[in-house]
C-alpha cells in the first residue's frame, strides 16, 4: 500500500475514534463535566492543542493529483507525489535555490531574484524550502512522536503494572526487577543504544522512546492496583461471583484511567522534547522540529545571521509544549480524585 493511503486510513480511523470518544463523553455526565471544566480553566491552551491536532490531521490527508497541474517541468520530482492538504496551501513549486530572508525578494547570498519574491513569510532554508511550510508539517511529526510512543507506553505499562499489582508475589518481584534495572540505566545511553540496534525511522525512534518511557507509568499503575485490589468494591464484586479477570477489566482498569490520562498528558510533551534531543545527537526523525533546530543551530554563526529557521521551529515547539503542559495540569486538576469532587 502506498504510504499516503495508509496515512489517510489511519487518520480517518483516528478521527472516527476521536469523534466516537467525544460523543460518548458528551453523553456521560462525569466526562461532560470534566470536559467543560477543562475548557473553562484553560480555553486558550485547549484551543492551541486543538489547532495543532487540526494542522497535523490536515497534513495527514494526502492524495496524488491526476495531472499535477501546478507542477512545472523543472521540478519534475513533484509529479505523481502525494500532497497533503497543508502542502496544497502552498504552490507546488514553492521552492527557491537557497537561503532567503522572510518576505525577501532576493536570495540572501548572490542577490539572485527569487522565484516567488515576497511570498515566503518565514523565509527559506539552505536548500530553498519554505520555512513556514516546514514548520507546519513539523506539527504532524511532533504529534506522531507523542501519540505513537504513548500508544506503545500506555498498554505496556497497564499490562505490566496491573498484572504485577494484581497477582503480586513472584511476578511482582520479576516486574519490579526489570523496572529497577531499566530505571537504573542512563536514559540517554539506553535510547542511543536502542536506536543503534533498531535503526532510525519514525517507528523505531518511537519504539525506543517507548521502551525507555514505560517504567514511570507502570510503577504508578502497580501501586494504584495494589491499593484498589484491597478496596471494598473489588471484594463486593467477588462476593457477587465476578471472575478475577472481569474484576480487573471492569473495576481495576477503569479506576486507573485518570492516572493514564494525566500521565499521557504529561508524558506527551516530554516525548516531543526527547525527540529534539535525539535530533541534536543526529538520530532524530526527518521533518521534525528537532531536525530543523539542529540544522538551524550552525546557521546562527553566519553573517548576516539566519534566525528565521530556528525561530520558527522552536516557537512552534515551545507553544505546543506550553499548551500541552497547561492542558495536562488542568486535566490533572479536573480528573484527580482528590480534586475532582470539588470540580463537579
Amino acid at each position, binding site marked *: 500500500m502506498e504510504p499516503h493511503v495508509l496515512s489517510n486510513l489511519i487518520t480517518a480511523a483516528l478521527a472516527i475514534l476521536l469523534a466516537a470518544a467525544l460523543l460518548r463523553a458528551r453523553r456521560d*455526565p*462525569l466526562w461532560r463535566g470534566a470536559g467543560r471544566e477543562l475548557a473553562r480553566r484553560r480555553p486558550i491552551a485547549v484551543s492551541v492543542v486543538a489547532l495543532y491536532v487540526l494542522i497535523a490531521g490536515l497534513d495527514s490527508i494526502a492524495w496524488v493529483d491526476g495531472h499535477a497541474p501546478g507542477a512545472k517541468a523543472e521540478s519534475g520530482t513533484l509529479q505523481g507525489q502525494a500532497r497533503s492538504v497543508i502542502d496544497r496551501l502552498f504552490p507546488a513549486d514553492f521552492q527557491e535555490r537557497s537561503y532567503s530572508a522572510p518576505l525577501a525578494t532576493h536570495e540572501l547570498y548572490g542577490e539572485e531574484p527569487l522565484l516567488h519574491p515576497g511570498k515566503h513569510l518565514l523565509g527559506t532554508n539552505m536548500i530553498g524550502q519554505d520555512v513556514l511550510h516546514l514548520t507546519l508539517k513539523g506539527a504532524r511529526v511532533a504529534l506522531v512522536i507523542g501519540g505513537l510512543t504513548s500508544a506503545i507506553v500506555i498498554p505496556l505499562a497497564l499490562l505490566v503494572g496491573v498484572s504485577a499489582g494484581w497477582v503480586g508475589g513472584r511476578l511482582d518481584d520479576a516486574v519490579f526487577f526489570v523496572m529497577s534495572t531499566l530505571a537504573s540505566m542512563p536514559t540517554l545511553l539506553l535510547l542511543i543504544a536502542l536506536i543503534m540496534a533498531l535503526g532510525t525511522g519514525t517507528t523505531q525512534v518511537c519504539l525506543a522512546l517507548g521502551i525507555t518511557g514505560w517504567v514511570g507509568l507502570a510503577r504508578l499503575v502497580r501501586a494504584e492496583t495494589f491499593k484498589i485490589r484491597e*478496596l*471494598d*468494591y473489588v*471484594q*463486593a*464484586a*467477588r*462476593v*457477587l*461471583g*465476578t*471472575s478475577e479477570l472481569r474484576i480487573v477489566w*471492569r*473495576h481495576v482498569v*477503569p*479506576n486507573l*484511567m485518570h492516572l493514564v490520562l494525566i500521565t499521557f498528558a504529561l508524558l506527551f510533551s516530554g516525548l516531543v522534547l526527547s525527540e529534539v534531543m535525539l535530533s541534536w545527537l543526529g538520530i532524530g526523525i526527518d521533518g521534525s522540529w528537532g531536525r530543523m533546530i539542529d540544522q538551524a543551530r550552525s546557521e546562527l554563526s553566519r553573517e548576516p545571521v539566519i534566525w528565521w529557521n530556528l525561530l520558527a521551529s522552536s516557537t512552534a515547539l515551545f507553544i505546543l509544549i506550553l499548551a500541552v503542559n497547561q492542558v495536562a495540569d488542568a486535566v490533572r486538576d479536573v480528573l484527580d*480524585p482528590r480534586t475532582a*469532587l470539588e470540580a*463537579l
Partner: protein
Amino acid sequence: MSEARARARELVLEVRDLSTSFPIDGARRRVVDRVSLEVAAGETLALVGESGCGKSVTALSAMRLVPKPGLVESGTIRIGGKDVRTLPVTEMRRVRGNDVSMIFQEPMTSLNPVQTCGAQVVEGIRLHHRVSNAEARRQAGALFSQVGIPDAEARLDAYPHQLSGGMRQRVMIAMALASRPRLLIADEPTTALDVTIQAQILELLRSLQRDLGMAILLITHDVGIVNELADRVAVMYAGRIAEEGPRRDVLGAPRHPYTQGLLRSLPGRAAPGERLEEIPGVVPPPSQWPSGCRFSNRCPIAFEPCDSIEPERTAVSAVHGVWCHAVARDLGASEP
C-alpha cells in the same frame, strides 16, 4: 415441596468446626477456632462480638474469600447443601451472588466510583442470568424501587458519589438481591450510617426478608440491632463461640459471663447518672489468647479448669448452648 417443608429446619448455611488461621507474629494463629453455625431458610442469625473476634473472617470463610495469607484449616461449610471447601472455582463463583450474597459496612467504598449504580447492578444480574442489557436494566430499575430508592429509573444513571450513604447502602442491597439469594450475609450493614438511616435500612432488610423468604447472617457488634432483627444469636469472643441460642434466651437470660458482661455494659440499661458496668481488661491479641477458655483471664467467675481446659458446649436447653465451665458445673450440680 412437601418434603422440603417436612424437614423442620432446612439449612441454607451450615458451618461445622470451622478453623481459619492467619500468620501472626511468626506463627499461624487460629483467629476462628472450631466455630459451628447454622442458618435455616428465612431466619436471621446474628453473629455478635467485638472487633477482631473473628466474625467477619467466619463470614468470608463461608464464601471462600478469606484474604491471603489467611487459610481455612479445617471444618465443613455447606451453602444450600453444597460443600464450599471442595467446590470447583467456577461452581463457587456461581454460588456467590446466586445462593449467597454479602453487603458490607462501608457503603462509601463498596461501590465502584467510576461506574453508574445502574451499570453495577446490571453487571450483577448479567453475571448469573442470560438476559439482554435492556432486560437487566429493567430488572435493576425494579430492584431499585424494591429497596426503596426514590426515582429509581433516574438513579440508575447516578454515580455513587452523587448518592448519600443510605442510598448507596440501598444500591448495595439491590446488587446483593439481584439473583434472589437464599442467604444474605450482612457485615455490619448499618455501622457507617447515622441513626435514622440505620433504622430505615434495618426496616428494609426486615421487609425484604419477609417478602423474599431470605435468610440473613447478620454480623454486628450492636446489640440494639440484634434485638431489632435477629431470630437467633451467636456470641463470639476471641475466635470462639461463647453462647448460642434463640434471641430471647441469649439476650433475655444470658448464661455465659461474657454475654452477661456485654449486656450489662449497654447504656440503655443504666439509670441516668449511674456508672456503666464494664468487663475488666481488654480483648487480648490472638497471640496472647489463654489456652483454656478464651475469656478466663477476664472472667469474674473463672475457677480451676478455666485457664487450662477449653470448655465444650453445654446445653442449657435444646436450642440454647453455652461454652462455659461454670455453667456446666452449675447445671451438673442441679441435675445429678
